[in-house]
């Protein structure tokens, strides 16, 4: 059939669209008000805003007492997410290739390990990790929490990378070797370029999970100098003295907008990975 697959003419899609719209309403409402409330005032007991204001955004130019500067926090978050991405891409692109293609002893064992770990609920290890970081003095430092977060996300990254490499035809590598290149060169010059889009998707995914991570920085690096946006926002919300949803939401929007932008532009790439790395 030349035409794209489309819903069968035998079933009307109207009822399912109506049903799903109804179910999606609360979600849409929450996200709509997330944006509306940051730039408006709503009288008590009403749902409709009556006044435009930028008051809630004052956190951008006024540092709150007892809280770190928002730009420092943003920078921390950016460093945190970028470093995680860099570590995961570097380490996983190498390890994934080994698991997919190279003759190493106990390759099957590695692969089983990676697979178990990628399903393994790593948050349960946080208590031990907390104590370890205290021992080795990396508690309350960005580097410590970056290493931990990267290590925890690594098995999934390796698993996905292995899947990407599996799709590269062997012939390319065979040709490269016959042409006299070493296995390393073959990997670097011939194989890696083949999976560039997939690597980009994994990079985006890692960046987003790093950007969103809450519990690890909260437990392992809560200090003001190393605070990230999630911890900052959580500490705002938990502070009962300054309860103001408008400000919370403004910080929230400030925090979520980069995520949404990346999501809108790269939705297709990301969908595959959010599906759980199930290609295998």
């Amino acid at each position, binding site marked *: 059939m030349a035409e794209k697959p489309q819903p069968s003419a035998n079933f009307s899609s109207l009822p399912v669209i109506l049903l799903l719209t109804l179910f999606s309403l609360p979600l849409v409402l929450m996200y709509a008000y997330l944006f509306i409330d940051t730039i408006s005032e709503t009288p008590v007991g009403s749902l409709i805003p009556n006044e435009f204001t930028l008051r809630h955004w004052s956190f951008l130019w006024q540092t709150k007492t007892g809280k770190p500067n928002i730009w420092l926090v943003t920078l921390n978050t950016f460093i945190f997410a970028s470093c995680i991405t860099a570590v995961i891409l570097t380490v996983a692109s190498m390890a994934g290739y080994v698991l997919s293609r190279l003759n190493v002893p106990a390759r099957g064992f590695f692969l089983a390990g990676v697979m178990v770990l990628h399903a393994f609920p790593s948050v349960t290890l946080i208590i031990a990790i*907390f104590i370890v970081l205290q021992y080795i003095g990396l508690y309350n430092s960005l580097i410590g929490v970056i290493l931990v977060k990267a290590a925890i996300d*690594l098995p999934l990254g390796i698993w996905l990378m292995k899947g990407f490499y599996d799709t590269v035809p062997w012939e390319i590598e065979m040709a490269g070797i016959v042409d006299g290149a070493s296995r390393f060169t073959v990997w670097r010059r011939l194989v890696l370029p083949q999976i560039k889009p997939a690597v980009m998707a994994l990079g985006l995914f890692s960046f987003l999970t790093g950007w969103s991570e809450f519990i690890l920085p909260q437990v392992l690096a809560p200090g003001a100098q190393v605070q990230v946006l999630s911890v900052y926002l959580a500490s705002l919300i938990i502070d009962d003295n300054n309860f103001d949803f408008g400000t919370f939401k403004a910080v929230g929007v400030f925090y979520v907008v980069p995520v949404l932008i990346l999501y809108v532009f790269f939705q297709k790439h990301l969908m595959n990975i959010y599906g759980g790395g199930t290609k295998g």
Partner: protein
Amino acid sequence: MRTSRTLGLFMIAPASIMIFLFFLMPVVLTAIFAMTNMSTATGISGGAWQVTQAAVNRLKTDLPELADGIAEPRFIIDEEGLKELETLKLKPGFAAELRAEHMGEVYPSRREAERVIKALKDRPSTREVKQISDLFNRSVLNTRFETRDELMANLKKLGFDLTPQQQDIVARATYTGWIWTTDNFRIISSSPDMAQIFFNTAFYVSVTLLLFNVGYALFLALTTHYMQASTASVFRAIWLLPRITPVVIYVLLWKWLTWDSGFISTFMSQFGYPPKNYLLDTAYNAWFFVILINGFIGASMGMLVFSSAIKAIPQTQFHASEVDGASRLQQIRYIILPQLRWPILFVTCYQTLSLLASFNEILLSTRGGPGKATEVWSLAAFHTALNNYTGNLEYGLGAAMALVLVVVGIILSLIYLRIFRYDTLISKPLIED
């Protein structure tokens, strides 16, 4: 043979090291910490020996006499005290006489010591008696000893002659650092609180899994299947939002929805219902929202997995079944669902694990409340070890609770590995160098 092997080991080394350091070691350490009573009080490095009031209380059951004795001050006429006395510039006769007559004597109470001092030939004043007796006070109460032997030597000097067994008891009672113990597991298996938390967890995981991570995910996948591709992608994008939104913001949205000045309250007040905090007013409501909050996130993975599984069913099977006379429900029941068995199993396994372990959302929304109504296992472990109201963080007990999850996690993921037959995924390298 050598090149690919060396290269392989070199390339996999960073991953191995990181996974070893931050994955395998924590697993082992969790098990180790679970066997201790580490807490804020004991510290995480070694401890010392100190006869605190609490230690005395502990001793009272086994060695009541000793406990009473230890708690009392002890007075010993020793060289150390005499030297200090000499520097005090009182009458020199005091020190000389004490050294000559009473050296090495031990008095079990201040009264006895002071009676001896009062009887000195140079007749000290009442104030001086007090001053002198203080110099010979050799109580071990609240003194810190770096080693066990030091404590024992001091006790001996004070006239407590202890058998080795008694020494063991005293040492155990006075040690301030952490010790090896299996108490954590006894607490876990016998405490009614733990039983409640266990029940909460089972309830939370099974209900969320059934209703949302699988049930609602199937609903989303099926409904979007019966739409134009473009419409379907809009809905999929909406339902993926909870997953991509950072958890702190996502929970904030729910708080806004359920807060006493939030959306539901305001909305219901139009109909005359007084505003209240819908998230935390009753345990029933708290569970309702905890499950929704987690379920909305969980549904997206299933949705994507099931959608792509449905997409993998050849179009002609849908055509054929329609021509064969199947209604929409019959098509779902007989054609689609039977072919989603493996994806459903996969999502169930995967999500059981992540639901068991994730406590982000509950921590940020109800904090396990109201009361401990929505406290689940992983959150309880976190509360016990890393964040609780009393301030005494019980690392050991928390680690033991986490260890339960670790063991469950390992077992489930091994089952998962068996079901999904990883061995079929390894193909032999085609280049044999």
